């Protein structure tokens, strides 16, 4: 079933009886060539690219809940490639380019909207840092513009420019950045993978690995044993729990990050604005709700909910920047579990167990990575070599002293 304008028209005229489920619900086979653990954005994108680009056969995605029940269904949907370090920026720009073609490629509306992201500048030091970052972005083929105060004012005249502590002095703008519909991305990749023959198996939790002589043979699941020549794990916030079953300890802590949506308002924020100094960022959904967030709560958590102090802090940051929203009501608050790595950057690598591969450490930024995370993981699973944009994402980089620490915070996950 292909989606098209013609199809929508035809269904509208014939009572919408022709729409079919977007993917099958197959029973697990006894064995596969590749089993992907985790049906979030990373896992589904991996399966899709493995089947499509690398012509992999007999692939399954095992998801313990329903598709999109993890972070992919909980995030604030910002996509961007405005990183600084050479280990990161080419990867995220590769991802950005994949976003730009994804909807045509998998024939599904993921509502990718390149509405631009603006990082606010308040000091000379910050302007220098952002100019350097902008140059790094340009070098990697991304777009970047440095705006002065008047440039920011032309875009968002209603921001509080003269906050006593953080007056707005300018901003770093990436016009190609923006947002996408998180569920649309899940469904698009799931449907795309299913059409290419991938078995997507929900309500199937991996409870152990069968490993003999240092080689993985398959996975134990709540729906029985499933054999696999290769197993790729992409379980985000559950990374430590799952890899522990293969006897590994990871350079990762799990932390909770909260997000917020206000009642529907008239269009006011047409891009994404980040106010890093105030621990606040915001965009507006197509339904009118302000979608915003701030920092992680800062302590280890698997609770998928946060605490009130961060809600207060984020609200304060929002009001400092946008006093006009003072009367808007908050509709919903929720949390997701972040796989915070020790340097704030992800891992896409083999593991000491033969045939077992790991993808994780996405921190609070793995949504934008969804296309490239899957593409590069598929590349690794298919060829046993890292994709050229993901060569720095090694599991042993900490031990070897090759950390990719964008913020320069050291091995302190709650500061990344």
């Amino acid at each position, binding site marked *: 079933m292909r989606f098209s304008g013609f199809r929508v028209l035809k269904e509208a005229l014939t009572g919408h009886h022709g729409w079919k489920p977007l993917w099958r619900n197959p029973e697990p086979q006894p064995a596969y060539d590749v089993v992907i653990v985790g049906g979030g954005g990373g896992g589904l994108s991996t399966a899709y690219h493995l089947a499509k680009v690398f012509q992999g056969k007999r692939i399954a995605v095992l998801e313990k809940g329903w598709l999109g029940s993890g972070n992919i269904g909980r995030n604030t949907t910002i996509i961007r490639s405005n990183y600084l370090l050479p280990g990161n920026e080419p990867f995220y720009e590769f991802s950005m380019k994949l976003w730009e073609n994804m909807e045509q490629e998998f024939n599904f509306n993921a509502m990718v909207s390149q509405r631009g992201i603006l990082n606010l500048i308040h000091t000379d030091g910050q302007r220098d840092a952002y100019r350097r970052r902008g140059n790094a972005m340009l070098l990697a083929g991304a777009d970047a513009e440095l705006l002065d105060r008047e440039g920011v004012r032309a875009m968002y005249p209603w921001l509080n420019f003269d906050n006593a502590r953080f007056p707005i002095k300018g901003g770093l703008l990436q016009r190609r950045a923006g947002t996408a519909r998180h569920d649309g991305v899940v469904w698009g990749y799931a449907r795309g993978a299913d059409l290419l023959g991938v078995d997507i198996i929900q309500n199937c939790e991996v409870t152990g690995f069968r490993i003999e002589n240092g080689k993985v043979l398959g996975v134990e699941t709540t729906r029985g044993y499933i054999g696999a020549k290769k197993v790729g794990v992409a379980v985000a916030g559950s990374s430590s729990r799952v890899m522990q079953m293969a006897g590994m300890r*990871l350079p990762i802590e799990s932390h909770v990050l909260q997000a917020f949506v206000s009642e529907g308002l008239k269009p006011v924020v047409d891009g994404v604005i980040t106010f890093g100094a105030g621990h606040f960022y915001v965009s507006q959904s197509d339904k009118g709700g302000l979608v915003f967030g701030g920092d992680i709560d800062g302590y280890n958590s698997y609770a998928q909910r946060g605490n009130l102090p961060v809600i207060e802090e984020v609200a304060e940051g929002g009001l400092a920047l946008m006093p006009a929203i003072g009367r808007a009501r908050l509709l919903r608050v929720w949390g997701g579990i972040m796989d915070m790595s020790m340097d704030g950057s992800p891992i896409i690598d083999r593991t000491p167990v033969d045939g077992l591969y790991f993808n994780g450490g996405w921190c609070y930024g793995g949504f934008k990575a969804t296309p490239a995370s899957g593409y590069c993981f598929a590349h690794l699973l298919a060829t046993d070599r890292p994709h050229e944009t993901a060569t720095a994402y090694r599991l042993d980089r900490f031990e070897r002293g090759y950390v990719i620490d964008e913020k320069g915070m050291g*091995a302190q996950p709650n500061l990344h």
Partner: protein
Amino acid sequence: MLIPHPLLGPRDAQEFTYLGDASLLNRPDGMAEGALDAFNRHVYLRDNPAGVHRELWFHEQGDRSWLVVTRNTLTHEILGAELARDVALAQKGGAK
């Protein structure tokens, strides 16, 4: 979250900053055999359990003591708190 400070009674967790797993108290001996590996594990690798976790909190906006707090990471329930100094001394074999 309220942290039951052993000296000051229940205090709002907001008064504290969080460091991480209490195993950070056991700094490896840099001169020992295999120190490189021990430091890699100490600095970078974590158990990161879903459930009971012993962790270091610093009472920054209070009496500036370090605590070892026992907390459930699945529910955020706080099960107890001790002075990190006492924990560290006990680990070193009760020396003063």
